[in-house]
């Protein structure tokens, strides 16, 4: 295997935003035990801006580091901006990933997209609830 970058190891050593958010505005759960990586991403949104993001991850060094990085990247971004955060952006922010670990960054992107979708579904629901 290729060695991890300094940045990956730094995020792995001190992962940011570990945990769950009570009453989150969006949750994204991806992966399964078969492939060896499971990520849960929680977001809190206020006025269309992501005010908080947390994660729980079962997975390898890259899975933990990408989880940590993606939560860092999206905090303070608008939902639309966050939608544009790609797996490449996560990997780049980490100073690159070994080729066989790129799938971890894909997983992080998917978790984020799912959380954002979840947020949007809830908002629509809330809105239509109000309207009713």
């Amino acid at each position: 295997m290729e060695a991890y970058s300094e940045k990956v190891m730094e995020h792995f050593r001190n992962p940011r935003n570990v945990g769950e958010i009570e009453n989150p505005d969006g949750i994204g759960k991806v992966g399964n035990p078969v492939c060896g990586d499971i990520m849960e991403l929680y977001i809190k949104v206020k006025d269309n801006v992501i005010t908080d993001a947390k994660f729980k991850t079962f997975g390898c060094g890259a899975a933990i580091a990408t989880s940590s990085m993606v939560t860092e990247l999206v905090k303070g971004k608008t939902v639309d901006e966050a939608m544009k955060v790609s797996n490449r952006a996560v990997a780049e922010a980490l100073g690159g990933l070994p080729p066989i670990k790129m799938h971890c960054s894909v997983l992080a992107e998917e978790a984020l997209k799912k959380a954002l979708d979840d947020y949007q579904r809830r908002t629509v629901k809330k809105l239509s609830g109000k309207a009713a």
Partner: protein
Amino acid sequence: MKRIYLDYAATTPVDVRVVKAMLPHFTEIYGNPSSLHAFGQEAKHVVEESRHTVASFIGAKPEEIIFTSGGTESNNFTIGGIAHARSDKGNHIITSRIEHHAILEPCHFLEKEGFQVTYLPVDKYGLVDPGDVRKAINAKTILISIMHANNEIGTIQPIAEIGSIARENGVYFHTDAVQTFGHLPVDVDELNLDLLSASGHKLYGPKGVGIIYARKGIRMSPFMQGGGQEKGRRASTHNVPGIVGLGKAVDLAKEEMGQEIEHLTVLRDRLIQGILNAIEYSSLNGHPTKRLPNNVNVSIAYVEGESMLLNLDMEGIACSTGSACSSASLEPSHVLTAIGLPHELAHGSLRFSLGRPTTSDDINYVLSVLPGIVGKLRAMSPLYKKEVKYGSVQ
């Protein structure tokens, strides 16, 4: 930082006495053993001395030892060499699901060429049932290859028994002894072996040298062709320092193996018990007693192997994992799958393999560090949370 190497099954440091034995063969006795002159004959002499040492260590004759470049070559050579030399006799090979890839991949390759391969299952401890071997033999069976001890989970197979079944049926029997050669007593007659593979760097010898034992009279297609070395079966200029180093490593093993087994078995069992006691939802992989004296393999539920490994590495402890995340295939270890571990537990495995220099303090250090790491990772793990909340059973 304290640095503790507990990955002796991956490779060992070369014993300083081995290095010392090798040194003159780089710069002084440097001839090519195929050369007729004195420089060559001196080199040839030490190669033959080493062959003698290796042979007598396993109860073989010197002419039954072929020097190779390592365990992978020995395995590839044996599987391909026997299959091709005996294809007129039959096209069926029996092996197990938990062999090293250096056995399994050549077998897969032979299947493409039209050979038939039976991959025997193992029980939850990783044991092959000799009865299964007997049942699998048919009129076309030309080779049985079952490893002596598994490199991941340490389980030691009933080799003598399988060998006697092979012999009764007139089928050649090979064992991959890479993990046992120099660590456990091996006698080719007592174990009913026809062929055996071993590798220098697993017994405090050099990397890049290995052996095949092939009982007298066995025909094998050559693996490398060119200079006619090793009676035409394995060409290429002899790796004289490597061969001398292997011989010296065997000499040392002969002397020290007995006390090493005792020493390591005690430490092994302390580490196993220590982990099982200290860490909830942890379990031993492999057989509790039919087990390499230096092998500890545990699954720790709700956490993934590589992240434990990296955390241990940050504390100076080197070990290995069967997690998919450390392999290019993204599949967890075929061995852990074969013993029936669910994927989560296969992903959460750690192998600590002990060695001659391992001390009681090293074990204590691991036991002082590991629970904290597991705790930290479980706090991060979405699986742990649920299991603990909903009280699911392991």
